[in-house]
Every structure is written in C-alpha cells, then in structure tokens.
C-alpha cells in the first residue's frame, strides 16, 4: 500500500447520479445506490452490472454480510430489504417496514445474527438477520440518527445523530451506556432556522482505542453549502477529543464516510463544491497527510482492506474504484 500513489483503476458509468456504495467483503462485487431508487451490483474487475429493484425511494444505507452473500439496504421509504446478491439472478429475500421516514444507516453484527438500523424517526432498531423480525428497539436520540456501527466484540452498538451526540448502547442490558460528545460536527444557524451537520460517519478501531467521527464544521451558510470537512479523532474509552482533523481549502466539503486502513491510517471522503477528495490522516498531525483528488464530487466510499482498493460513488453517475498503491 502506498496512499501517495492512489490512482483510479476502474470507473463504470450508470444512468443517474450515485448516492452510496459498499464493497463486498470478498472484494469481487460493489453495490451502489442511485437517484432512481435502484441498486446496482458491479462485478469487480469486469464491471458487469446487475440491477436490484425493490425500494420506492433513495437508498443511503447498504451493508454486506461477512460472507458477501447478502446485502442489506435501508431506504428513504423506511424499508429494509435483504437481498441475495451472489446468485445469477439476485433476488429479494425479505422486505420489511422498518422506520417511519428515512433510514440513514444499517449495520450487521460481527456474528451476522443481527441487523441494526437508524433513521430520521430517532429510533434504533435491531432485527434478526435470518428472519427480519424486530428483536427490540432503543430510544434516546433527540434528533435524526445518521450513522451506526457495531463494536467488533458485538456487545455494543454505536450511533451518531444530527446534534453530534454519539450514543454507545450496551446490547446485553439493552440500555444506553454512555454518550460521546461530537458537537463540533453540529451547527445551528438561527438566521436560516436550520440545524445542520451531525455525525455523518463513524469508524471504530478498538486496538487503537480510537473512534473517528466525520462530518462538517464552519457551517456559516448551510443552505448555500458553505461548510468544511471535519474528522474528529476521539478516545474510544473515555470520549476525549484527541485531534480535530480539519482541512484547508475545501470550502463546501463534508465527510460522508470515514474508515481505517490496516496500518492505522484514517481515510475520509469529502464531497462538496470543491469536488470529491480522499483525505488521509494519521495521529501525528491535524492536517491531512495526503489528499487524492477524485475527478468529480463523491458522496460515499468503501474500502476493501485486503486489496487496498477504495470504491467511491459519484454525482456524475460513475462508480470509481481506486487502488491505494502504485500502478502496476
């Protein structure tokens, strides 16, 4: 891996702007969602495309099962769909009414037994992966919930909301365990009557005892897309803020996703008026250690750690896959 040699390896075009994307754990498929409420399955590296029809609105939330055989998606239609995605003809396994309003995040537990979903109705719900039945729900967020992830140990769920509150839920006693403050990601603009920002993305690294929270700050004009990308590096154990990774010269940027690389480098994707940028951070400095300018505005990314490939979903209808290594 050499992040300074990041380059676009593949790009495939769809008919409409893309919204989100995820790479299958086996690295052989990428799922993307688009503004026509469709899901695309792209075969890597051929670029062969299959279409999934089932949602009645846009899809912001996608997650693969660890065996890559199932894809779980949450839509702005409030529905969660389980898809069988490795068959010749992908199909819907089940479809449930999950939330009132938009679903913003779905996550599958490390043991593949539970799906967590969050959305605008401020409720966290946990579902049986195998039956789709609701196991229980958790209430406590006061505003829209944007992101969710399971602790690798499977005993905690982490959810982040518009107000910059990150709740850590204990899944054994089904209670809120503690809350981490990520309010630098939140802005209230009283002049515009707007609340903006929030915890758009999170990534947990237990070995490093660090939680990344991504989004935006300096939101002086939320309606006009005047804001800058920000990634907070927080102590997982006590929530103390270790670093604020702000980036110069990216007016209009917002971090849609953050992830960890194998070597502990943090990666965020920023999309906004300055286009799409992959931002790389380490724990020695607040500014990024490297940035890779994507051809156009990106709205999501997903990294395949074993191959050091990163998929990005773009407004210009393209799914791009970049290699974080020197061109061969």
């Amino acid at each position: 891996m050499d992040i300074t040699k990041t380059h676009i390896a593949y790009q495939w075009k769809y008919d409409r702007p893309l919204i989100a994307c995820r790479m299958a754990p086996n690295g052989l498929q990428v799922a993307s969602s688009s503004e026509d409420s469709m899901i695309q399955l792209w075969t890597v590296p051929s670029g062969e495309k299959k279409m999934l029809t089932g949602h009645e609105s846009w899809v912001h939330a996608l997650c693969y099962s660890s065996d890559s055989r199932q894809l779980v998606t949450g839509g702005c239609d409030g529905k969660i769909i389980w898809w069988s995605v490795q068959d010749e003809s992908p199909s819907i396994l089940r479809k449930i009414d999950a939330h009132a309003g938009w679903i913003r995040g779905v996550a599958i537990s490390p043991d593949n037994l539970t799906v967590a979903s969050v959305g605008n109705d401020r409720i966290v719900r946990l579902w049986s992966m195998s039956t789709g039945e609701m196991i229980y729900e958790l209430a406590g967020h006061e505003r829209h919930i944007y992101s969710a992830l399971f602790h690798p140990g499977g005993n905690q769920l982490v959810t982040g909301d518009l107000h910059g509150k990150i709740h850590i839920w204990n899944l054994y006693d089904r209670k809120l365990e503690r809350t981490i403050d990520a309010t630098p990601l939140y802005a209230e603009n009283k002049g515009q009557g707007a609340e903006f920002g929030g915890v758009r993305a999170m990534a947990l690294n237990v070995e490093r005892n660090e939680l990344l929270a991504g989004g935006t700050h300096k939101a002086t004009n939320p309606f006009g897309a005047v804001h800058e990308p920000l990634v907070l590096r927080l102590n997982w154990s006590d929530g103390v803020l270790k670093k604020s990774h702000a980036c110069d010269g990216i007016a209009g940027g917002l971090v849609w996703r953050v992830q960890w690389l194998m070597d502990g480098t943090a990666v965020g994707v920023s999309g906004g008026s300055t286009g799409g940028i992959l931002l790389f951070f380490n724990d020695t400095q607040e500014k990024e250690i490297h940035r890779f300018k994507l051809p156009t505005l990106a709205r999501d990314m997903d990294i395949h750690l074993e191959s050091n490939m990163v998929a990005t979903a773009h407004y210009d209808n393209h799914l791009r896959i970049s290699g974080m290594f020197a061109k061969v």
Partner: protein
Amino acid sequence: MTFAHYACGSYEHGANRRRFLRQSLSGIAAGGAIAGGLGSLAFGAAAEQLKSQDMRVVVFNMHGGLSQLESWDPKPGTKTGGPCRSIATSVPGVHISDLLPYTAKQMHHLCLMRGVNTAEDDHGKGAYMMLTGRRQSGAADYPQIGAVAARMLNDENRGLPGHIVVTPNGGGGKGNEAAYLGPKYASISLGGSKPPPNTTKPDAITDESETRRHELRRHINQEFLSRRRTAITDAYTHSYEQALRLMERKDVFDISKEPVRDQDRYGKHDFGRQCLMARRLLENGVSFVQVTHSNYDTHNENFIFHIEQLGEFDQPFATLIADLADRGLLEKTLVVVLSEFGRTPNINLYYGRDHWSKAWSVVMAGGKLARGAVFGKTNDEGTEVVDGQVDHGALFHTYLRAVGVDSSQSIAVDGRELPIADPAAAPIWKVLT
C-alpha cells in the same frame, strides 16, 4: 418585507436587517418617516359594506422559496422527483408530498395552484411580486396585500391593527409595504408568538398621569392639525392612538389564554405558537395576518431541510385550516401559502434545489375559493407549466376577489386613480365561486 438569511447572499439580508432595527412600537409611532400620501379613498358605502362582511386574510410566507416538488406538486419516480414520495389526500385523485400528511387530510378545504410562472428568480423581486401582484419598478411602488387588506377590510372600531406580520424574531415588515396607502396601513410586526413590544405601561407612570399626557398630546396635535393637517400628520396621530388601543387590547396577543389543549394541538415550537396566534388574531377580527416560516432556500441538502421545515409546518397549518373550517371562519378567511418562487426540478450535486420560478405552486383556501380544487398542471418532470398557467398579477386579483373585493377598482390618491391590482392582469375566475 421580511427578514432574510438567504443562502445565495442576497441584498435582502442587509436591507431587512435595517428594517428589523426599526421595529418596535415606538417605531410605529414614528411611522410618519415613511413617505406616501393618504389620499381620498373613494369607496364610500361599498367600502363600509365590505368591512361589514368581516372578511380576513392569513398569508403563510414560506421564506426562501418552498420546493413545490416536496410539497404541493410531487413527481415521485421521475428524474426530478427526489427521494420524497406522494400520498393520497382527502380529495380522491389528488396527491401531495408525503412530507405533508396532516395537510393532506385537509385537502378538501384547499385550492392548489400548480401552474404558477412568475419568471423571476431573485428573492427580493420575487417576494415583491408575490405580495404586491406587480413587478418591481423604479417608477412606482405598490402596497402589499396586507396593507390593501387592512385598508379594504379592517374595521377600526375593533381597536386592533389591520395588518400584522409574524416572523420568528419580530423582524421584517415595514419598509414601504403600504406604499401610497400610507403608513396607517403598514404592518405591526410580532416576534414569534410574543405580543407587540412596549405595550405595558411602566409602573412609574400612574393612570392619571398617563391620561394627562395623552390629553396634552391630543390638545397640541389638535392645535397643529387645525393649521397644518397632512397625510403624514394624520399617520402620526393614528400611530399614537393605535398604540394606545393596542395597550388596551394586548390580551388579544396572549396565546396563553388559549386552552391548553389547543396549545398542545398546535405544538409547542415557534411555528405552532405562531399559528395559534394567527387563529386568535383572526378570531378577534384582525383583517390580515402574515406568518413567516423560515427558511426554504435550500441550495444544499434540500430534502433533509424540507423534512425538517415541513415537519414543523404541517401539523400546525393543518390544525389551523381544520379549526377555521370547524368554526365557520374559513368562509370569511382567505388562506394563502406562498413563496417568492419555487425550486429547480433539477437536483444539484449537493442534494439541493436552486431557484425556479417557471413552474411552481401556491396554495389558497377559504373565502370565495373553490374547495378541494387543483388548478394548473406541470409536465411530468415539473420543468414547465402545461396547463392553467397563472402569475403573480392574476393571483393578487384572485386574493382580493376571494374576500369580496372588486379588484378592478382604483383608489384615488392625490387626485390620481391608482388601480389596487394590476389592470393588465385578471382574477382566476375558474377557482372563484
């Protein structure tokens, strides 16, 4: 006309900030600073008859430019539709955005105008057009609908102002919104659901001394007016007397006097309280109330902001419509939901929508309007009006006709006959009963 925090950095921000600073009851008393003559008003018996009909107007100004696609004219499943969907309403076959579930249940009271084309994408100019029915020009200034309603409909014997503008922070209003009608018909601005400022007599002033002060003022005024009476001096006098009447009737502005159940039904947030205030004012006979709901200038993240804003708007607005209908007031009350323009069918790269005045929607209800009606149509992607196109001029005529005002009339000001609505436009007769 209203405060502004536009995403696009419009001039309106600065201009209206200055207006905001002018607001207060003392500002009303100083209203003579606004130019404009109060000419002879040539309506006589007809005008009195109109006032006796007790008609009222409430305007909801969806500040910044409400998206028609996320409200009154959704296009789900199309290239421009976005993630929001449409839902059925109380009128079979009519669908509106799923962001308005409570309003959908009141559709049988509403009249949707889906073919609005105002051809003006500037905030300030668009707002001027929608509130005056005319295009802004340097040659003349025209009164806003609130001032016209106050002039034509208000019964001054009630002791309440005829033109009230409610904004989140009390800013806005004033400017030259009454134009040639004169400052007497300019608005009183309320901040949120609070009563007008400075309506409580300081404890240090006794009732007796207060009475003597006003007697002295009236005496001096009378002396002066006997020699130099002008429209401006009349406006000064009117402002003082209006302030006094407001102090006497300040309980009208106190929504805590409304039943707790109603306060709950309308919601505890600002807009809910403002809608309850609007109902209270209308029930007490105020002829015009404008409630500003802000902000819709969503060049960025249009959908999540509309979820937020319309989530706040929907229930109080629907509750007000239902209450007006249940209490028999909708027959006498014109309700208008307008913006300065709509928003682009195209979804930009920030999930936003920009300014779009070629094909958008206005909603009306009550008075002499058809109920449960849809007039006008846009094409499949909402980019153009394909049927029933109307503009600001026609809408302004229709507002007036809906409350029984002959919009073809003129007002005589300083010897000139000034049409109250643009003579080049006409009412939309098909939506009037």
